[in-house]
């Protein structure tokens, strides 16, 4: 008797998703599919728009990482007009963007990821959320989480004009300068964010890494995939969220490729499967070999751990110390342990906050020279940034008037599509043994894709902070049993 387990709805990747797990007659996992069930077609309706409007249109792809699209789109549009933005404009964009990264990483860690460790999968769904976490670590700490998440959100709003959908970046620079009054307000918030980021890492060490069960989850082989990794690095080889050279590391850690993001088409292809609306990016020179890991498969991963794996180090001193600790713990590079994405995210958060504190003290930051007026369009541009969830490419071609003829978008979460399928399947294989997974086991299966912080995560960041999850067991005779993670669930 074969069974199907459906987990639906799970996610806000670029919309909705579900997981189907097919079991064989012995109740072992046969196949597993992560399906994305929605498409909106931005690439199509970006055609015909003036390119300078795309930084205001493309953030609507995702209300949880709009800042990344705003930046990638502005950079692509800068290139379409062949314009170099003034140094102050770049500093303002970086200030905004580091706040965006900090905001996203803080939310993901505390509201979504941490409750799986503290209090943990066995605590049950009614405690496994940010409220349960606050109960475990203390109310004062809980307030600090909300306050610092708020600081990062506020800095974004001050720089970009709107707390959710940013508007102030456009081809040639920024639409408004930073006022001294605003700068003075941001400075103490940035300093406090640095301290909070350090504290978050200590919390990770004390409450997660020091506990045997969670240490095993992080360093064991349930959450493990040998893949390629990609991320942007600056000219010193350090992690850079706003700009840089794209680097690809092999599963054995060697440098596989290093390229200008403008040449992404030489390196990245996208495979299409008929059972999902989401494509599967892969390394062209290795090829698409199906949903398998290893050096012969072109599947690569992006997001926090991938960035640390490809980089030579962090761009800021405190984050660098933490980076060294992580690789010491695992005994070298690269780290293939998927749960290490959470640790890497906290290290990146520290870098983002250190960058905030540095940039806000830059004597030029309130300068008025924030725009270069572009001339005639060159007609083509690629903008790449590291979104919180991984490398993001916007590629535009326009006519001589700057009207978009072609837009190609390779979104961060999409690049982890194949890896998320691999990770969920592997976790299901290891954890589901007799076809009757209990609630805690399903949570552990779910943790496999939660490590990638697929965009759903952002929306579930606050409050109960759980991913909606429904599991249906469908037998050939049509009997349906529902295991629900909710407090009212049967399971």
């Amino acid at each position, binding site marked *: 008797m074969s069974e199907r387990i459906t987990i639906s709805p799970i996610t806000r990747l670029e919309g909705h998703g579900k997981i189907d797990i097919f079991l064989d007659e012995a109740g072992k996992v046969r196949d597993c599919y992560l399906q994305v069930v*929605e498409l909106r077609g931005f690439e199509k309706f970006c055609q015909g728009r003036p390119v300078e409007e795309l930084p205001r249109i493309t953030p609507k792809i995702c*209300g949880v990482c709009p800042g990344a699209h705003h930046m990638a789109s502005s950079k692509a549009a800068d290139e379409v007009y062949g314009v170099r933005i003034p140094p102050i404009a770049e500093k303002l964009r970086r200030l905004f963007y580091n706040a965006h990264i900090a905001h996203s990483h803080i939310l993901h860690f505390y509201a979504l990821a941490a409750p799986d460790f503290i209090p943990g999968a066995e605590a049950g769904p009614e405690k496994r959320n940010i409220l349960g976490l606050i109960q475990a670590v203390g109310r004062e700490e809980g307030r600090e989480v909300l306050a610092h998440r708020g600081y990062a959100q506020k800095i974004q709003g001050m720089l970009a004009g709107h707390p959710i959908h940013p508007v102030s970046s456009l081809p040639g620079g920024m639409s408004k300068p930073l006022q001294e009054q605003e700068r003075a307000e941001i400075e103490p918030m940035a300093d406090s964010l640095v301290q909070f980021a350090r504290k978050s890492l200590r919390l990770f060490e004390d409450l997660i890494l020091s506990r045997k069960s969670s240490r095993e989850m992080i360093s064991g082989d349930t959450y493990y995939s040998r893949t390629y990794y990609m991320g942007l690095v600056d000219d010193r080889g350090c992690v850079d969220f706003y700009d840089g050279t794209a680097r690809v590391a092999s599963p054995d850690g060697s440098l596989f490729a290093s390229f200008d993001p403008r040449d992404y088409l030489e390196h990245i292809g996208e495979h299409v499967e008929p059972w999902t609306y989401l494509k599967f990016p892969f390394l062209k020179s290795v090829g698409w070999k199906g949903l398998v890991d290893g050096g012969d498969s072109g599947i690569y991963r992006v997001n926090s751990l991938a960035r640390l794996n490809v980089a030579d180090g962090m761009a800021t001193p405190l984050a660098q110390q933490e980076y060294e600790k992580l690789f010491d713990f695992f005994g070298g590079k690269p780290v293939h342990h998927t749960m290490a994405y959470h640790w890497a995210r906290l290290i990146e958060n520290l870098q983002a906050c250190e960058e905030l504190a540095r940039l806000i003290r830059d004597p030029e930051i309130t300068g008025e020279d924030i725009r270069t007026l572009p001339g005639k369009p060159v007609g083509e541009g690629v903008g790449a940034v590291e979104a919180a969830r991984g490398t993001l490419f916007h590629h535009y071609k326009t006519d001589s008037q700057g009207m978009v003829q072609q837009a190609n978008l390779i979104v961060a979460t999409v690049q982890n599509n194949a890896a998320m399928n691999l990770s969920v399947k592997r976790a299901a294989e290891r954890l589901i043994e007799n076809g009757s997974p209990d609630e805690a086991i399903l949570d552990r299966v779910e943790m496999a894709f939660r490590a990638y912080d697929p965009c759903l995560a952002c929306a579930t960041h606050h409050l109960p902070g759980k991913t909606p999850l429904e599991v249906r067991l469908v037998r050939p005779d049509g009997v349906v049993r529902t295991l629900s993670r909710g407090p009212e669930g049967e399971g």
Partner: protein
Amino acid sequence: MSKIKLAMNWAGACGGCDVSLLDLEDKILELSEIADVVYWPAAMDYKRRDLQEAPDGSVDVGLFNGVVRTSEQAEDAELMRSKCRVLVSYGSCACFGGIPGLANLSDREGIFSLVYRDTPSTLNEEDNRPSPQWQDNGHTLTLPEFEDTVRALHHAVRVDYFLPGCPPSRERILDAVNLIAALAGGEDTPPAGTVLAPEHALCRDCERIDSKKSDRIPRVVRPHEIRADSGTCFLEQGIICMGPFTRSGCGGLCLAANQPCRGCFGPTPTQLDPGAEALSAFGSVVGPRGEDFLTRAEMKREVGRIPDPAGTFYRFTLPHSVLYRSFAAENKDRG
């Protein structure tokens, strides 16, 4: 006062509406004092099945964000309508189609052939397309149908109130919370069909309004072409701004960031169609004075400098407008 039951559903949208509700922070606690949230997939652990099993009309207020494009979204719209006594279109996508509504300039085939075949990074020699039903390794996998046309919520089901914005601003959300409180307390509520936002145009609230001197726009410029003065009306500077045709209530955040309005709050109540109004108005005020002495070509020259009228004037409202969708695509559907 008994607590009322509240449901929030998300359809074809970016998630920003869900974030806007979460961003209420302290106020969301007030909301929780007057309402029990019985369904909110983005933030809570209640399932579609929980809503399906609830008796019809047993939920007091439903908030629906996003457009209706797939068969699953249409089913969710029906489900929310049947379960909720009061249904609110939450955000510009549900109210007017929003940015995803621009997809009505094309259709399913146009989108699929681009996304799954013609984008330069796609390598798809078999010409695979996502399919509503597919056999893979002996398993049947299903996907919701992708329709040709994006619809606003009220095209799919009857809607009681409209809460516009991309996403709705804090003030508007608090208005909606007050409405929910009124319902909970059994007080009078606005008539069905009410848009929960001020009735006047954004210009009236704009700090730049006093700088509007001329009644003409001699020359149209695009936002990146000049350094816009932060105190002067955008139209006065030649930059197309949708302020005159757009309902107020957003708080003017884009204007404060020195960027023109793009119309996310939709039309004021006196306008049939914001795009047609804008086109008509700009058509008569753009260009140099003295039309009587100009040839048609000269008159049209400046109007022709308005790039992408459809995408500018209907940025957030295409499915709700008189245009609805591209005619070429519509024709092909019929053929």
